[in-house]
């Protein structure tokens, strides 16, 4: 053999007697060292409470618990303001929590005289939820903030804890609330339902037997929107002959809807 100065054999008693080939024994040693290293590093680096409760750090719950509490919850308010709680309980706002409008109240509950929550009286608050937005579910009460009784605070007509409209909807809106609501924010807000539907009086008593009319022809819309229609000058016009002649107008512009221009 070549002149090699190392004594390569591991001088370990019994090395030869382990019944594996030499290579495997050595690889196993390396492997075991790696595994031990991994376990040590893992023990050292892994947060101590990690797998205790699941795949997360159990102590994280305690650190979250230690965070300051800002919201007291609606039950807390009823202790002192039970009249408001009772009022709101049966109103349209029953699912809107007190602190949504009044802001976090935990410190107020602790010391009511020292910390008074705000009572937002400006017109800006209510539109946060009620301004018209096409993506809100149909039927959600929405208003066009520009045209809905401008300049007056909402509170002057709607009690925030029981916000029913001052007078119950009459006429068609009593039953067709959703249509009335969407139409109220559409381009056709100013038009009466009866402008486009002639409803027999009996419809209000027996709606399924006495059906109101619905626009049937394009020329109906043309009565206001045609080039030569005798209608108010500011109404936008189209040429009925050339403007999408193959479809009914409401296939593209459903007149109740605001977003379909």
């Amino acid at each position, binding site marked *: *053999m*070549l002149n*090699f100065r*190392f004594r*390569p*054999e*591991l001088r370990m008693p019994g090395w030869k007697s382990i019944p594996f*080939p*030499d*290579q*495997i024994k*050595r*690889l196993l040693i*390396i492997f075991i060292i*790696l595994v031990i290293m*991994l376990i040590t*590093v*893992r023990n050292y*680096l*892994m947060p101590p409470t*990690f*797998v205790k409760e699941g*795949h997360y750090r159990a102590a994280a719950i305690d650190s979250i618990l230690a965070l300051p509490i800002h919201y007291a919850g609606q039950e807390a308010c009823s202790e002192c303001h039970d009249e408001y709680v009772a009022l709101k309980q049966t109103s349209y706002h029953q699912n809107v929590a007190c602190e949504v409008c009044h802001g976090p109240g935990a410190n107020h509950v602790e010391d009511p005289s020292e910390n008074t929550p705000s009572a937002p009286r400006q017109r800006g608050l209510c539109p946060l939820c009620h301004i018209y937005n096409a993506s809100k579910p149909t039927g959600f009460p929405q208003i066009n903030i520009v045209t809905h009784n401008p300049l007056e605070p909402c509170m002057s007509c709607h009690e925030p804890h029981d916000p029913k409209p001052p007078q119950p909807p009459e006429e068609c809106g009593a039953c067709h609330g959703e249509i009335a609501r969407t139409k109220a924010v559409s381009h056709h807000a100013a038009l009466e339902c009866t402008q486009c539907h002639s409803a027999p009086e009996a419809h209000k008593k027996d709606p399924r037997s006495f059906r109101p009319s619905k626009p049937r022809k394009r020329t109906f819309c043309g009565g206001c929107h045609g080039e030569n229609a005798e209608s108010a000058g500011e109404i936008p016009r189209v040429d009925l002959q050339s403007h999408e002649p193959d479809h009914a107008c409401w296939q593209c512009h459903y007149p109740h809807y605001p977003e379909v221009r």
Partner: protein
Amino acid sequence: MENLIEQLQPILKQVVGYIYPNEVELHWGILIVVYPYITGLVAGAFILASLERVFEVKEVQPTYRLSMLTALAFLIIAPLPLLAHLSYPERSIEIFLTPQLKSAMAMFGFVYAWYLMIVLMLEIWFDYRKDIVYWARSKKGWRKYMYYLLSLGSLDLSEKAIRFDRKAGKFITIIGIPSAFLLHGYVGFIFGSVKANPWWSSVLMPIVFLFSAIVSGIALMILIYGVTTLFRWKPIDMACMDKLASFLLYAMILDISLETLDFIHRMYESVESIHILGQLISQKLFISLVVIQILLGTLLPLGSLASVKLFRLPDELRRLIYFGAAILVQIGIFSTRWNVVIGGQLFSKSLRGLTHYKMELLGIEGLLISIALLFLPLFVLYIIIKILPPWPEAATTPLSSIAKESSQ
């Protein structure tokens, strides 16, 4: 905020149709294109090496060790694009410390570690041990110690020990093939399992990934084998080249059939996403998919490789064709990855609009870094080759005689 708007302005101009606000900017950029491309090369190169070992394809034997080392070099670099993509790369260690078995992404570390440590390293070690011992004895200075360390002190060169090396190597190769399938199939799975994305979500994804990986790996070995042989002033073994080229041809035929199957399946199903995917292909991916991936990267090399089979061409010309085809295939497979990764993010989940990808040039997720990452494995390969030369003349016994023994 202002900054962000300014950044998105040029992209917004290219947005068509309706998209959601968080879809304007792509979150997976070119780095995530580089990553499956590189792992594909690893799996491909390894599978090629295994062919020689398991099925004893003698012709491609000159590339056996080279393929193993190439796979190792590329595998070492494979996680880098991912790390560069993370905002907090130092936290990546945590997926090893607290393994979450239900997350496919979290399992990457283990698939990777298994493949690197158990499959590649071990197979190379067993294959080279005899030579390492020889070098540990014949080299001088620090090299001696390095080889001694690499041998792990296992210096036994007896007939029995060497036979065991060969057996162990073969055994590992046999585990290695499914492992290579796992490694790259896994990458395909990551995409294929995103059920919200109609461009990705497909059970065929892992399989298509795998076959394109094999294609790219074989093409890479044609290039690396050719170039290294040229630089060593050795004659190119044409039998080997021809065999590699045939493998490439067959793998490409399989690959293209699978992709066509996927395509036909999608067309036939025609689920609601088909319209937007059609727009995606015709508007945003036309160059990278139709022109580069299909025409340049698949049909042209396929045609030229097939023509070599049909006509008798002189060696010189065949070599040129193989080289050209291999380069085109690389470009083609890279754009395949591009079309999957980038394409899958270009259309809106509303299925009504398309956005645009604007690649950075500088910056950690930019083009320059990606190019660097693509060439880094070659540099690593150079170093590995310096340590473990795969050439027949560097080995203690001629490789051919080993092959003879192993076939007995």
